[in-house]
């Protein structure tokens, strides 16, 4: 159900349309504030449930509460977010809208999704064989 609602949310909000996303990111041109409102709506709705969740060890259906614990602002976070931002600005797609558009829209979406999955797989390969500079984390396994 949640997946469906998420999909509907993206459709209703117009975020499945890359032109609207880029319209928000185009602050120097013709600015479409929609994305900001979408975020605001989402966060306002989410803030109470998440605050509740932070005090819990388990979810309502019994599974353990799995909130992320990392608090470090490391290089990966910044570089990753930057790369994501660039790709996002270039095509106006992030993972959610791309997947939502997959079935009903045309081939360019599929192209994006394939490239995105490839990028994800590449990233996984990279962490398995750390070519990272300055000898950061050594993998012992």
């Amino acid at each position: 159900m949640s997946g469906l609602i998420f999909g509907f949310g993206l459709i209703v909000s117009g975020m499945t349309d890359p032109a609207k996303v880029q319209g928000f990111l185009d602050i120097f041109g013709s600015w479409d504030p929609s994305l900001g409102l979408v975020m605001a709506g989402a966060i306002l709705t989410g803030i109470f449930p998440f605050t509740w969740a932070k005090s819990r060890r388990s979810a309502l259906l019994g599974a353990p509460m799995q909130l992320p614990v990392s608090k470090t602002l490391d290089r990966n976070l910044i570089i990753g977010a930057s790369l994501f931002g660039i790709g996002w600005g270039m095509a106006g797609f992030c993972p959610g809208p791309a997947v939502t558009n997959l079935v009903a829209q045309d081939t360019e979406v599929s192209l994006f999704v394939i490239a995105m999955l490839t990028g994800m797989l590449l990233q996984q390969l990279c962490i398995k064989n750390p070519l990272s500079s300055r000898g950061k984390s050594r993998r012992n396994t």
Partner: protein
Amino acid sequence: MNIDWQSFDPWNALVGGMLIGLTAALMIVFLGRIAGISGIIGRLLQSDIWGRPSEWSWRAVFILGMLTAPLVWKMVGTLPVIHVTSNSVIIVIAGLLVGFGTRLGSGCTSGHGVCGLSRLSFRSLVATITFLLTGMLTVYVMRHILRLT
């Protein structure tokens, strides 16, 4: 900066956003999981997960839900027209960057932007600001300097 009043649809944006927030709320309250799309997809790409139904089942079902949403929508209405603004080369490069970047940075607009900010995570705030800024810079360069989109 001039506002694009023609495209701006505040009510749809707000309602849609609330639906997205609702999804995140349902997932965390009932399943204890973060509804971050890049993480959900990325985790499904890791081969070790497929032997563990408790790990892949909810993720696969979530994605299935997203994939079916437009089909269900079409049964009761018309889908909004989307405008792909870039050519295939740009799309491929963008896809690679989004895929790689979201996994490296541990999240995207739903993971960091919605879930992370809803739980007041400073790390997510930094990530969100970073991709918003780089996104804006990219659009500026592509649209107003290179005239590519």
